């Protein structure tokens, strides 16, 4: 037990330290390359990753969010109808998703879909000495491999959150129209009436934060793989679990911060 406790504390601290070092080193390596008169990385690398992380995730994010919005409207609607307040459903779905569920669910889905892929990919490259070969050639592997991936997921997560919000609203609108007699136009106006800028800004800021977390954790786990194929598998699982746990923890801290500032 005495041995387990320090390990349980030491491992997350080591991971956080490693991620901070990775972020700083990636920025430093990228800037160094720029100062030598080169572009930070090939645009095709970034757009390739953006396409994969962003466009490739749209169907999954849209589908899951649509069903979640639908379910949320259905469950809350039936309860609120007892009190004749089913008109609150559009606002509930709108605020719930733009501020909380949209970024959070998108973060979880991207962590599972893209975070796992990044870790497996970089882990395989690490195990087969490809990353080291890049370093040996003087090509910064952090600049070449980490920067475009982390930037893509950082910038694309807010866009995916918007997709999630819209899909959830579509699901909610469908239920409200069919079950509670709220027309699509009235649904839209109720959403607009209830949503305030703070909700949208909070959702966007969260999305950027989650994107950064997922990008750094998945790349860090990939680059620190040890032990060949089984090591890649272990790192991939660990990457997804860590990213989801950290995203949820960050979400909670963010919400506490928002409540302390605004309430």
């Amino acid at each position, binding site marked *: 037990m005495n041995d387990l406790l320090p390990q349980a504390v030491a491992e997350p601290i080591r991971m956080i330290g490693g991620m901070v070092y990775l972020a700083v080193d990636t920025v430093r390596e990228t800037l160094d390359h720029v100062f*030598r008169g*080169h572009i930070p990385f090939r645009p095709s690398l970034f757009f390739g990753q953006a396409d994969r992380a962003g466009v490739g995730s749209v169907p999954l994010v849209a589908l899951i969010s649509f069903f979640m919005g639908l379910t949320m409207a259905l469950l809350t609607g039936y309860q609120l109808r007892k009190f004749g307040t089913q008109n609150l459903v559009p606002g509930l779905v709108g605020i719930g998703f733009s501020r909380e569920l949209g970024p959070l669910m998108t973060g979880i889905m991207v962590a599972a879909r893209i975070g796992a892929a990044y870790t497996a990919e970089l882990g395989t490259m690490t195990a087969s000495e490809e990353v*080291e*070969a890049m*370093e040996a050639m003087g090509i910064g592997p952090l600049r070449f491999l980490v920067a475009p991936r982390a930037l893509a997921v950082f910038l694309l997560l807010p866009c995916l959150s918007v997709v999630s919000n819209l899909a959830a609203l579509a699901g909610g609108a469908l239920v409200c129209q069919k079950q509670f007699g709220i027309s699509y136009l009235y649904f839209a106006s109720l959403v607009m009436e209830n949503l305030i800028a703070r909700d949208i800004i909070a959702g966007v800021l969260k999305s950027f934060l989650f994107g950064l977390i997922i990008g750094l954790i998945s790349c860090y786990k990939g680059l620190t793989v040890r032990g060949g194929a089984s090591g890649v598998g272990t790192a991939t699982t660990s990457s997804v679990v860590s990213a989801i746990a950290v995203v949820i923890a960050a979400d909670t801290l963010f919400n506490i911060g928002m409540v302390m500032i605004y309430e």
Partner: protein
Amino acid sequence: MNERDHPAVRQEPWAGPPIVELRGVHLEFEGKPILRHLNLRVERKQRMVIMGQSGAGKSTLLRLILGILQPSAGSILFQGRNLNHASRREVNESRIKMGMVYQSSALISSLTVRDNLALPLEELTHKRRAEIDRIVEEKLALVGMEETGPLLPNELSGGMRKRVAIARALVLEPELLLFDEPTTGLDPVLSSVIDELIISLTDKAHTTSIIVTHELSSAFHIATRIAMLFQGRIIEEDRPERFRASHNPVVEQFIEGRTEGPIH
């Protein structure tokens, strides 16, 4: 006696300034010493073969020269520049003058052969596309791999991958080539092809090579000097013919492949 003064490590009096010099390099992993105050000088245009048991630290030595690993103590000089005290930019500048051929070839699996060779040129130089293409074709032709340009690494055999890795190491015209077990796992004919390639690179391109291997036939064929790494130290370093005649019990046992002796 200081290891630098050991007769086996002492250099010929006519030797020029070394391209690589390791001074008292000590390296530990998790408290376990891998290299113990090791000294080594590699002169320009030499083909220095480093031999030793598996796990003796030969590949680690190459990683130290590349600046990928940092020694626990001692210094590593490349062209007179101490890599331990160099900035990241300086280390990268030194790396551009080195070419490394990994045992596993370490070609980027998602890039075609042509893109693997073009990568360092695109990332580290300001050369135009046409010039990059010309250099890539030239280096592929040098290793007899002209036809493989559009293929992915996993579509090549082990020997072909090794030759492409050599071509990649050559694209930036390095002054120092590092080979980690270049002929391991290859058939004797292909091994000879790789050996001849290494020799011709030194002779024609005036490149210095450090080759890590424990294949004796290759080692004696390629080397202009051979060093024996044992228990973290260079215990013998000499010209091939003198190395073969060495009376050092470790060297004798290694060359003869005996099971009895100081090597367990």
